[in-house]
Structure formats: C-alpha cells, structure tokens
C-alpha cells in the first residue's frame, strides 16, 4: 500500500517545525522560505493550514514538463523533479492547479515535495500529529477528487 502525507489543519499550531525540517532536508538551511511545505495563517479565523503537493493522480506538472524533468518514483508514488534536467521554464508551476510546485530563483529550477524518498522530514518534525505519513487511501487522493467534484472541474483519468 502506497503512503501519502495527511495534513490536518485542526491539529496545526503554526509552530513551523515542518518548514524548518523541509528546508534543512533539502537545502541544509533553516530558511523557511525555501521549504516545500507551507503553513498558511488565517489571522481572522486563528487557523493554521499546512499545505503541500498531494502527489495527485493527474500529475499535471509531470505531463506539462516539456523536457522529462519530472518523473514518477515507483516506490513512493511521488512526482520528483530531476534538477539537472529541469530548464526552469516554470510551465509546471502554472499547470499544477494546486500551486504546489514552485520556482526557486537561487537555483533557477523548480521544487516540489518528493516525500523525502519515503521518510518525510516534515511528518517526523511535526510535534502535534498535524502531518502524518499514512496509507494513501484516505488522504490526498480522495480529498483531491472530492475537491474536483465540488467545483465544475472534471479531470479525466487514464
């Protein structure tokens, strides 16, 4: 059974441990601006929402990439950016309707969540259980479909 990240805003306290863990894992830096997972703050509602790529089935980013720089990791199911191949054209950043693949000016390439090869650092770092790495069935994939159903969009799948 493939696993995926389960993000639960109800448990998030906005401590940003996940962003720090991600920036450290991928950039050996605690500059949270470089993190691939983002916690969005809703001041009005006093709510924190952790958000990152759910490795969606449609993989719009991967299909749109003109040069084969995004590949499927057969083990984790993650869509992974091959940095040396990426030309930095950013087409993937507008193709992903979730806004979860982003351009990094300092490298001239894009980055997205790659599930850390199966041991996501953010989930390990989260002290409240707001981010967990669990069986795929009841997380992102289902949620994504639910979302797709909620709006008029109707992504076809192979």
């Amino acid at each position: 059974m493939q696993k995926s990240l389960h993000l639960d805003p109800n448990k998030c306290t906005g401590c940003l441990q996940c962003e720090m863990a991600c920036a450290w894992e991928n950039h050996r830096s605690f500059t949270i601006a470089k993190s691939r997972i983002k916690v969005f703050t809703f001041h009005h509602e006093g709510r924190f929402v952790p958000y990152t790529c759910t490795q969606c089935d449609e993989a719009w980013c991967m299909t749109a990439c003109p040069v084969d720089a995004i590949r499927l990791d057969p083990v984790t199911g993650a869509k992974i950016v091959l940095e040396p191949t990426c030309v930095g054209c950013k087409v993937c950043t507008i193709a992903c309707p979730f806004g979860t693949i982003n351009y990094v000016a300092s490298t001239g390439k894009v980055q997205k969540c790659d599930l850390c090869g199966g041991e996501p650092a953010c989930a390990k770092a989260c002290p409240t259980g707001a981010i967990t790495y669990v069986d795929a069935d009841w997380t992102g994939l289902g949620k994504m479909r639910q979302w797709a159903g909620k709006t008029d969009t109707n992504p076809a799948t192979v």
Partner: protein
Amino acid sequence: MRHLIIGSGPAGVIAAETLRKAAPAAEITLLCGEGEPPYARMAIPYLLKGEIDEAGTHIRKDADHYDRLRINLVQARARAIDIANRTVDLGGGRSLSFDRLLIATGSHPSLETIPGMDLPGVHSCWTLEDARSILAKARPGTRVVQMGAGFVGCIIMEGLLSRGVDLTILVRSGYMVRRMMNPTASSLIRSWCEARGVKILTRTQPLGITAGDGALQVTLPDGRTLPADLYLSAVGVDPNLDFLAGSGIDVDRGILVDPTMQTSVAGIYAAGDVAEATDCLTGRRQLNAIQPNAVEQGRIAALNMAGKPAQFRGSFVFNVLTTLGLVSSSFGEWQGVPQGESTEVLDEARYRYLNLQFEGDRLVGANCVGFADHVGAFRGLIEGRVRLGKWKQRLLDDPTRIMEAYLAAAHKVA
C-alpha cells in the same frame, strides 16, 4: 488497430504514450517532420543560453523510450490526407494507412510580409534548425534586430543577451506581450528590459530589409535604417494546415474539434497548436498555442482514439513568461469581463504587480509580474470556477491574499 500521429511535438508524444497505456496491443506510429528526435520548442531559449545541449530539448531522455513503448518513429512529412481510403501521403510514392489518425502538426512562425525576408541572416526562432543558425551567428557584438515582442520574442531575449549581442526590438503595437499582459504589466516588462540595455522601438514596423555594407539594412518607416548582422522575426504563429487542403476536414483558423478532440471526420482527431477548440471560460472557439494545452489535448484525443471516452474541458488560456529574469504570468480573462470587477497592487520600484479580474464572486483572470509563488492556484481558482464567497471582498481589499483565498474557497479549510 493502427494509430497514426502526425507531428512529434508535445501533443504528439503525450498522445502516443497515452495510447500505449490505454491500448496495449495497438500499433502506434509517430511521424516526425523535421528529421529530429521528438523535441520541445519550449526548451530552445535554454539552448540559446547555453544551459543545455540539443539533447536537453528532447521530450524524452531515455534512448530506448519509444522502442520500449513500441511507438514507431518515422521521419517524414505528411503531404496530404485521403479520408476515404484512410491513408496519409508522405510524398515520393510512400504512404501510411490508419484506422485512427491524430493531427498534431503544431504551428509555424507567421512572417511579416516585407521585402527581404528571404535574405541570409533573416531567421525565426521556432525550430532546432533555427536555433542552430542563431547560435552560429549570435556572438559578442553581433547586431540583432528582432521584430516582435510577443511571448516567444520576450522569452528568447535572455539567451540572445547572454551571448553578448547588441539587441534592438521592434514592436508593431504600442506595447510588449500585449496578448497576455495589460498595459501596466507590459510597461513594467519594458522598463525592466530597457534597464538591461535592450533598445525597444514601439509602434515601429520595418518597411523592408536589404543586404549592403556587409550587413542587413532594416528600413524603418521614419526613413532611418538599422544595420543588423541578424534579423529575427517573432511576430506570431499560425497553425500548420497546408497539407489539409481539399481533404474534407473542416478548418477555420485551426482544425475544428469537438470536446473529444475529434475533427469533422470520424476517427480523425487534432490536438495542440493546430487545433481550434472551445475556450472553457468564454465558450468561443480559439487557438491556444501553449505547451500545457498541447499535452492535455493530446491526452484527451488519445483516450478517445483508444475507445475510452474523455472530454476536453475547453481551452484555458494561461502562460508564464520570464523576460531577462523577470517572471510574469497571465491567466484566463485577464482583460476583464463586462460588468466584472477588478483590483490591483503595483510596486513599480520592485517590479511587482498583481491584477485580479472577477465576475460575480469568481476569479476569471489575472496578470502577475514579479509574483511566482503558488501561481498554479490561479489556474485552480479560475478554471475550477471556484466561488469565492466572502473571500472576494478580502481579495478586492488585498489581492496578495490569493493563496489564503484559494485554500479557504477551493479546499474549504478555513
């Protein structure tokens, strides 16, 4: 079942791969029209910059990729289609038969109609062969006159400047990238370019080009001539339809398709730059010559060719552009709609600009300059026709809260 695909750009390649997945036993042939392996035009700017070699432009990197998927690559150009006998003429007495056909022939540069366009040193920037010619000529000090500052014209500037050329851009209209940017965004891009040494002449269309004094001489309407070692034409593109004349397949500006990407002839499909599909926001038919559109249409066409019904949601017009390092993007109805509302923030000094267009409580369009984070959410909001509810007013007050609005309205998380 014999599937034939004409054109090995992104639309053709994704279609072939999708077909293989959906129809494991089918015979799949992919016609490559340029004597090159399947490559992506989009990668050409990075080839000009010297960041990648030609192999870096190839759509798939593994040498045996097409063999492994049993996709037959054939180097030839389609000359004509015989819909009654279900054959494609390749010239020289050769032809191929098909049960299902996909036309994914893309587009070609539309050249300005002035004398001198056939002179050596006059090029477009559309094919790998064009890129080779440009690379051979563009050296430090080379005087380049480029006609056109549309999307492709802007994106190749960085590659040209990185080679040390002296660049002058002629723009027919009053402003750059006018088909994707509003005047405010466009003038930000212009001043950014000018600050980096690019000379830009708007409302200028050359009258003709001649050869003399060891260079090209470009005559301007005010009587001046600009000497040039290289003249680049980048004024737009037109679909590749010539070989369809008399075939019985309905065309207007492009090949007309229904939501399954089928043309007016059963069993014959079209996808990518060459197809004229319905816009998902306006309901009007239009060409949409961008990469994401090409691959989505290629995928939908292939599913239907394999007998798996799939519907194209309609063209969504959006694009991201990097002009000498300045990132800008445009989505949907960025010009606004009648009775719509809009909001914007501008920070001229920092080259940042955001303009949002609403219809009722839905976002229908946007222009961004200097904002590159989470821009995909614009697509999610606009194409998904997400109702913003109370977030519309919040966005009118502060458009930069777009990601919060997206999470709250599309994902109902707040």
